[in-house]
């Protein structure tokens, strides 16, 4: 998966599509398998990135890694009460409105209003927070200044970020990363969570979940949610019924800004532990190394030997994700330091300085079209804290590439630039005209079937291994035989 942050307009269409399909139920109202956060901001649930509070993810232990807040001994000894479990107040209490009062209200001096009613208790509540309560509040004290990623900045850098003229924000849409080293799977005492071999989707078996709640703590992205009504944890299922039939997940299909890309990545599962436990500074580089070249004959032969379908290999070869991540190297994982090896990559936002303020003068004329890529309005340290575990060089490299593409296209389409400037930018960021055009195409002009290259799962064949289709003709169905009723 790749999310292109420069294209995200923060419209929350993805969140709504997901909500309407999967989480519009009792106990799941507060879950946002897909959510969009304003950065800088505290996110959802509040301050989820702060593992001093939530103890999610892995930490390096000798030559391997271990879960920070869960795991065999730690998890089981905290099974009665899990001190690091986020509670409803870390999210928000879901509510609706008592519309009937608009009609039933006794005659009075004032216009009646529909009061907020808690969806948990059914009683009137004062709403204090919501899932996107920090939307667009980039300079706010309660949200932006509480951002965990600010910690690496100096006081002066923080202050400049909040000056009115410099105030800056971007949107960060988040879903489950369907990690290669998922902390939720590892933390589940009852073994209900598993990663599907066929497509890598991480799922929770609802029958087997026993509400030990360790996955909620272990997931550093807080993308496993506890259903307080059914007593089961739930998470993003990457719309697997759609993916199995070759369709894009709802959040991606509906994306208005067309920022989302989904494609197959082949990887070497034997190297997961070694990659997850390498030094923090190597994490991004090593993760990139785990994904295999789908054109390499050796890789193709090995994949076929493992029973990977030809259609899957073909999809891997056409994968837009592989291009962004491996060929061009402009998409980065979110918080690689959590060591889960997330499979969702972000093209960082390019926010170049277009003007400067000195005293009362606001000067929007600059010598060149844009300032240097590294003079981004977001401090490099801030972006590095999000996407490269603190490595500003890596971020600089990506931003330079992104800017080179723009300068090149400006040169091609408008031609008002000093030719040298575009060439310099391309040279210093190590891309040629062809690559720049390809990046531009896949970013801006891309068609639906190029954004989503998803092989169908061939379940019509798979079912024959499980049962004789002749025997069960006519009695296959969809969903539960028993309704998901809360236990006694």
């Amino acid at each position: 998966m790749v999310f292109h942050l420069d294209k995200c307009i923060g419209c929350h269409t993805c969140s709504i599509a997901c909500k309407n399909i999967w989480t519009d139920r009792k106990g799941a109202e507060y879950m946002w398998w897909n959510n969009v956060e304003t950065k800088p901001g505290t996110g959802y649930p509040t301050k989820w990135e702060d593992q001093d509070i939530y103890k999610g993810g892995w930490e390096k232990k000798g030559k391997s890694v271990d879960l920070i807040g869960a795991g065999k001994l730690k998890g089981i000894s905290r099974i009665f009460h899990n001190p690091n479990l986020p509670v409803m107040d870390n999210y928000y209490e879901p509510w609706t409105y008592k519309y009937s009062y608009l009609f039933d209200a006794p005659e009075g001096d004032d216009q009646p209003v529909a009061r907020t009613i808690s969806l948990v208790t059914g009683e009137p509540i004062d709403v204090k927070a919501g899932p996107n309560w920090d939307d667009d509040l980039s300079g706010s004290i309660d949200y932006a200044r509480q951002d965990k990623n600010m910690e690496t900045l100096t006081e002066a850098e923080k202050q400049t970020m909040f000056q009115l003229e410099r105030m800056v924000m971007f949107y960060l849409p988040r879903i489950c990363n369907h990690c290669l080293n998922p902390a939720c799977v590892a933390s589940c005492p009852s073994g209900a969570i598993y990663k599907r071999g066929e497509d890598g989707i991480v799922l929770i078996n609802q029958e087997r979940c026993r509400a030990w709640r360790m996955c909620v703590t272990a997931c550093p992205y807080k993308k496993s949610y506890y259903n307080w009504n059914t007593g089961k944890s739930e998470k993003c299922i990457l719309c697997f019924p759609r993916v199995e039939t070759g369709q894009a997940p709802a959040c991606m299909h509906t994306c208005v800004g067309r920022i989302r890309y989904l494609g197959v990545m082949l990887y070497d599962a034997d190297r997961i532990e070694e990659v997850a436990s390498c030094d923090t500074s190597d994490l991004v580089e090593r993760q990139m190394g785990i994904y295999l070249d789908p054109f390499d004959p050796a890789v193709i032969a090995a994949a076929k030997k493992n029973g990977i379908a030809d259609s899957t290999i073909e999809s891997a070869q056409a994968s837009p994700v592989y291009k962004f991540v491996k060929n061009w190297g402009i998409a980065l994982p979110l918080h690689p330091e959590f060591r889960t090896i997330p499979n969702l990559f972000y093209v960082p936002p390019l926010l170049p300085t277009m003007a400067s303020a000195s005293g009362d003068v606001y000067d929007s004329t600059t010598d060149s079209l844009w300032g240097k890529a590294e003079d981004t309005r977001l401090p490099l340290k801030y972006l590095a804290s999000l996407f490269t575990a603190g490595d500003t060089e890596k971020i600089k490299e990506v931003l330079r590439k992104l800017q080179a593409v723009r300068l090149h296209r400006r040169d091609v389409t408008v031609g008002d630039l000093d030719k040298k400037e575009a060439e310099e930018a391309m040279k210093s960021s190590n891309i040629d005209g062809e690559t720049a055009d390809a990046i531009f195409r896949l970013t801006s002009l891309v068609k639906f079937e190029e954004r989503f290259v998803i092989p169908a799962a061939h379940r019509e064949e798979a079912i024959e291994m499980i049962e004789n289709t002749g025997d069960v003709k006519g009695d296959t169905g969809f969903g539960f035989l028993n309704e998901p009723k809360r236990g006694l």
Partner: protein
Amino acid sequence: MSNFFFIGLPYASIVIMLIGTIYRYRSTEFEYSSLSSQFLESKTLYKGVRPFHWGIIFLFFAHLIGFLFPRTVLAWNGDVLRLLIIEIGAFGFGLLTLWGLIILIIRRLRSRRTQIVTSKMDVVVYIILLVEVVTGLLSAYLYRWGSSWFASAMTPYLKSLFLFSPDTAALQAMPLLVQIHVVSAFSMFALIPFTRFVHFLVYPIWYFFRGYQRVVWNWDRNQIRNSDKMNFGKPPENN
């Protein structure tokens, strides 16, 4: 009457427990859950749930040891100091359980959010646990040296039940408090399949013996078209 309570009820309870839990596990496994309400209320839970669970786990194993190794317990109790240690220790854990249970009950009543997720069977669970713990503590206090008379009088009774030649004489001679304690304990067994008690039957012991990561292949693509290896009627692993 005593035959009903001391013979019929124990056997009925065990049968109900076995059939009920197995049947429900096979038909409605979805309802096997600890039904944690920590998500809705965490602070008071911390004060109650840990003492309660550690207390009741200790008491369960203490009863089990008294039942399985009565002679060892009696020999241990031959020394006054050792008798005092075991009695005071067990009583302490009893108090811990009661303390935790009371906090949990207050928590259920006080928070509107937890009231919402409290079922009728939860009320039954709380009542029977309270009866069990209070009668246990009172008999330990009023009728001294329970560890000894449990091993010498109650163990033979329980053993006779297991050997299908019930002998209730010892229990009939016991004070009413102890009799209530026994009857409510057996009732608890019968309640297991119908309450949240099921969660201790699915205690995740296997977690210690598995690797951290879990990958499930729904089908082996190399075998899909191999009719020799078709395995009719094998249920899928993942749901």
